[in-house]
């Protein structure tokens, strides 16, 4: 399962004068549940649309399942943020749509899932609640039996119960089929237990991409006297440096383990949300550890100049 499902090299997309995404290089291995995090307007949707083949890149390339994006349509499913459905179609019509538009279609799965969610097949999709519409849209996406599922803000507009149901079913499919999921969100807490790969996009650039556990293991929060901070900064990559005249709190990245430090430092592990926030606050920091594929220069651990 070391196959690369999504691979972007120097990927960029410009809308008129504004770059929505630029210089994006990342590789996502198969079977991962990838959290694509970043503030609104950071370029998450653009990246997903590029991967889905709905947009053509302005610069660079994006390869999905080994082919240029848009070539393996049957094996990639995409669920846009507003979870679009044909409003005048009944739920059954939507399933028929999926069956007619895809050579591989698991109708039994789709019907069982909708039955389990108590969504009647004879209702028009326009009459369903927002949560039910999202579930129907997700069902259509999953019944294609894709190898890669792209979800743009799947949790937006869902109540907590629906969120849990969506995630639960998604994780069950991942356990079952080894599906790779790439989902965007600006709420990190949604993703804490479900995702195992993190991609942080900020201001059109990919800032972090890596295995969540590795990332959490490599980052440490140091707090201690301010006068010691300079020495640490010279030895370790400092992501965020928060200082008063007496005290310093540093988020450091030590990919090869933390070296021996002055005992006055208090070291504690970092939580996912803290890690993400620190990077987002420091757009010039980057962590792209060892997943930049051949061809692109590894950028770790040097921060952007």
């Amino acid at each position: 399962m070391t196959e690369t499902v999504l691979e972007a090299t120097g990927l960029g997309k410009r809308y008129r004068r504004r770059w929505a995404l630029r210089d994006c290089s990342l590789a996502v291995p198969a079977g991962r549940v990838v959290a694509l995090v970043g503030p609104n307007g950071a370029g998450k949707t653009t990246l997903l649309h590029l991967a889905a083949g709905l947009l053509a890149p302005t610069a660079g390339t994006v390869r999905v399942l080994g082919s240029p994006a848009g070539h393996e349509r049957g094996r990639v499913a995409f669920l846009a943020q507003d979870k679009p459905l044909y409003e005048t179609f009944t739920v059954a019509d939507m399933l028929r749509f999926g069956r007619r538009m895809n050579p591989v279609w698991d109708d039994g799965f789709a019907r069982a899932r909708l039955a389990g969610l108590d969504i009647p097949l004879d209702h028009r999709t326009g009459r369903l609640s927002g949560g039910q519409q999202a579930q129907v849209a997700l069902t259509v996406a999953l019944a294609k039996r894709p190898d890669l599922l792209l979800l743009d803000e799947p949790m937006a507009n869902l109540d907590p119960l629906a969120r849990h149901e969506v995630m639960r079913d998604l994780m069950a499919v991942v356990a079952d089929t080894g599906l790779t999921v790439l989902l965007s969100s600006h709420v990190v807490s949604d993703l804490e237990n479900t995702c195992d790969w993190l991609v942080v996009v900020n201001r059109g650039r990919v800032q972090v991409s890596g295995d969540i556990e590795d990332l959490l293991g490599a980052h440490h929060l140091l707090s201690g006297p301010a006068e010691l901070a300079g020495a640490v900064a010279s030895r370790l990559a400092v992501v965020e440096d928060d200082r008063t005249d007496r005290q310093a709190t540093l988020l450091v990245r030590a990919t090869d383990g933390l070296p021996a430090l002055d005992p006055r430092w208090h070291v504690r592990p970092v939580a996912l949300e803290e890690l993400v926030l620190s990077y987002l606050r420091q757009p010039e920091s980057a962590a792209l550890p060892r997943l930049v594929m051949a061809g692109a220069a590894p950028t770790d651990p040097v921060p952007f100049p």
Partner: protein
Amino acid sequence: MIDFRLDKGSGVATYLQLVHQVKQALRLGVLHAGDRLPTAKDVVAKLAINPNTVLKAYRELEREGLVTARPGLGTFVERSLGTASLVDHARLRRELGRVVREGRAAGLDDEDLRALFTSVLTDSFREETA
């Protein structure tokens, strides 16, 4: 069958929570040798967590010799915990009591002792998992 639960506010890694819960169940006799643990899909479908987390917890339990994975069949409990440790339990309790008394003598109050205990726990936990 064991019923996993998550404590999201605890700050303990999810896979460790699963490991602890299996161990707890072994100690309390909820799980016996030969029992099958729920499949990753079952756990995932209930807790909405990443399946790799479950697999990681099971690998950890396997590493500790508590369970064995039989390909195609599932993960089975190898041995139970707890019965043999009753003696240990009494001894540890005595030792902790001694530490607490020494702490009081040194001027620590309950709050201080609790903080100290938690900090030692966290540190040793970090050493184990590092």
